[in-house]
């Protein structure tokens, strides 16, 4: 099935869709690395703004945008950040050093990105004095554009913009070359510590192949599952929900959104922001009320990641409502019966079904947790597939 609306061969629309998916990838990366939501977009915008003052060439500036967006994707699946990993501090730090190189490897697999993107991600954490990672490059061996990305990350990471000025100035000669630290100071005083959002440089993306979006989305889903230690989960959920949606005769638009939601609902579990309980849903019986707070928090976190990503707006409503119960006792909004999007009800039942050891138990939740019609459709799909 086609996951996305037909763009009618419009290359611009295809590039826009790809940029949206990259923004999603970046948001998942932020969550995996424990960055605040929207960090990747802000890093991208800051890097572009800084590049103007630093005199970075336009093609590298475009690459910087995408490198900023994907700056933390290497953390998805990295052992230092993976759910359930308990590593000694020393080993965890060494694993974390690999995040930029892993991010570069991910960027290299996305053929549409500007060629310099991968290496900017690879060298974003190098330091002037050679104590950075992963390559411990030093002095002028670090490309200036990569230093711009490092400065943008430092700026965004600081709570107060003024704080970043002190941070960078103190790092002159150690983290950054004195010249780049000066450039940052100049930029800071020029923009006043305010950075506006910038549109993705779509022209910098290579022509997008027909199946590129679906391939990228599947890869994101694979990495989310690898991060959570549940390899292949999205495929089981997608197969079930796809079959159930056909039986329930959902509209094609709803079915497409459901298929995307089945791939990315796990992104909410990746998050490690303090507001969200970082616990695996697998720790709880999917049919028990215990754990519903976690499920709701993960649902909201996944929906928040899609916020502002135009192409995925219909998906946000589905993943955000997957912890609602048919009888209205679910969370976070207590929606009931018809108020719950049909696709969300299918997704919730498919997730629960795949998590059950004894599959028949889902029948007992019909009418309370799940819509009985949805449960019947899920069971029928499972029977056919068996």
């Amino acid at each position, binding site marked *: 099935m086609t996951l996305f609306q037909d763009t009618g061969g419009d290359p611009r629309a295809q590039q826009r869709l790809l940029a949206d998916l990259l923004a999603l990838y970046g948001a998942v990366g932020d969550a995996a690395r424990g960055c605040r939501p929207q960090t990747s977009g802000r890093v991208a915008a800051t890097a572009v703004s800084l590049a103007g003052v630093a005199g970075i060439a336009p093609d590298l500036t475009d690459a910087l945008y995408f490198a900023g967006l994907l700056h933390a994707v290497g953390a998805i699946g990295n052992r230092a950040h993976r759910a359930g990993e308990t590593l000694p501090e*020393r080993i965890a*730090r*060494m694993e974390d050093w*690999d995040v930029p*190189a892993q991010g*570069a*490897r991910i960027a290299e697999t996305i053929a549409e990105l500007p060629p310099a993107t991968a*290496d900017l991600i*690879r060298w974003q954490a190098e330091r002037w*004095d*050679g*104590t950075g990672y*992963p*390559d*411990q*490059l*030093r*002095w*002028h*061996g670090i490309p200036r554009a990569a230093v711009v990305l490092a400065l943008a990350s430092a700026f965004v990471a600081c709570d107060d913009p003024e704080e970043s000025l002190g941070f960078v*100035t*103190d790092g*002159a*000669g*150690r983290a950054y070359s*004195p*010249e780049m*630290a*000066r450039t940052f100071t100049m930029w800071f005083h020029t923009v006043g510590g305010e950075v506006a959002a910038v549109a993705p440089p779509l022209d910098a993306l290579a022509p997008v192949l027909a199946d590129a979006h679906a391939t990228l989305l599947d890869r994101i889903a694979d990495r989310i599952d690898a991060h959570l230690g549940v390899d292949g989960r999205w495929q089981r959920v997608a197969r079930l929900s796809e079959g159930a949606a056909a039986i329930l005769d959902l509209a094609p638009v709803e079915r497409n959104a459901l298929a995307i939601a089945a791939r990315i609902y796990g992104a909410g579990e990746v998050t490690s922001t303090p507001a969200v309980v970082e616990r695996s849903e697998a720790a709880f019986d999917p049919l028990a009320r215990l754990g519903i707070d976690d499920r709701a928090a993960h649902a909201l976190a996944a929906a928040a990641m899609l916020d502002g990503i135009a192409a995925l707006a219909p998906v946000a409503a589905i993943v955000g409502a997957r912890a609602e119960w048919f009888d209205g006792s679910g969370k976070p909004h207590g929606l009931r019966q018809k108020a719950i999007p049909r696709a969300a009800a299918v997704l919730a039942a498919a997730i629960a079904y795949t998590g059950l050891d004894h599959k028949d138990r889902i029948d007992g939740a019909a009418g309370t947790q799940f819509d009985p019609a949805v449960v019947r459709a899920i069971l029928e799909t499972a029977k056919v597939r068996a």
Partner: protein
Amino acid sequence: MIELQERTRRISPSRLHEILQRNGCASMVDPFMGLPTHLNYLKRHGIAVHGGDLLEWFVRVGEGIVANDLTILRDSEVGEIVEMLPGRIYSLDTFKAWEGVFFSEEQCVYLSVWHDNVRNLRSDGQTGLAILGLWRTFCYWLQKTQNPDDMPDVAPSELAWSYIRETEAWVVANMRHNTIRQTDVLTTVEAQRADALFLAPPARNSFRSADARIWMWEAWWQGNPYFTIEHAYRDSLFGARAADPPAYARALASVLSAADAYPLVIVQTTEQRLADIEGIVANARPNVEVLAPHPYEIYLIAKK
């Protein structure tokens, strides 16, 4: 004022690791290793690494971050390196020749104290870690002579402390035998057998224009501020005897010839030198793949 060069050799160990993985290599020899931070990366990722160089301080650092699997420095031991110890007699004038030229009086005293303290450390591993940490302090000072107003003033012992602490974090074991030796290229190539040989050959006559941060630190380690790097390269394969292009080509060809037993040879070069080097590599090996992510980071991957 001393001139700090802009062009420095760039070796990206993460990319090198990707090349080794693609070719199924689990061990590698680097006879021109220089500062062996790239070997530390490869070691951390499970590759058995063997390095060699002519400069002793590179070799000492290699003993700290490559050959050393578990020796680290405790806080008290770092303190014994960065500060003058009561009761110990120091020769505070060792680096007086640099005073006023490159460094202040206080800095020269610290260089002398550190030299004596490092020489008194208990193990090769600790010595290597200390040398690398102190070198970064030394580089900071040299950089500060260029940008006195842009870089913060940090107390020497505090700066040295933080750098040695950072260096210590890189010590790791990979359950493989990793070695470092101070010898010329051919000896290293022939002494070890591995799946891959990595060569980043120095440019012709590069020892005559070596970076001050490299040769001055060898002078520090030798305790002789008048030391020049030409001493180390005297009678070496890529020393004065390889000064002209044919001699340089012969020297490189002899290394490739000695590397005949290695299944894979990776030669790193730059776009500028590619034309000269590619022909020599192609003469030695029939299958040469060129991987060129950057004009100044080109890999010739030569198989049998």
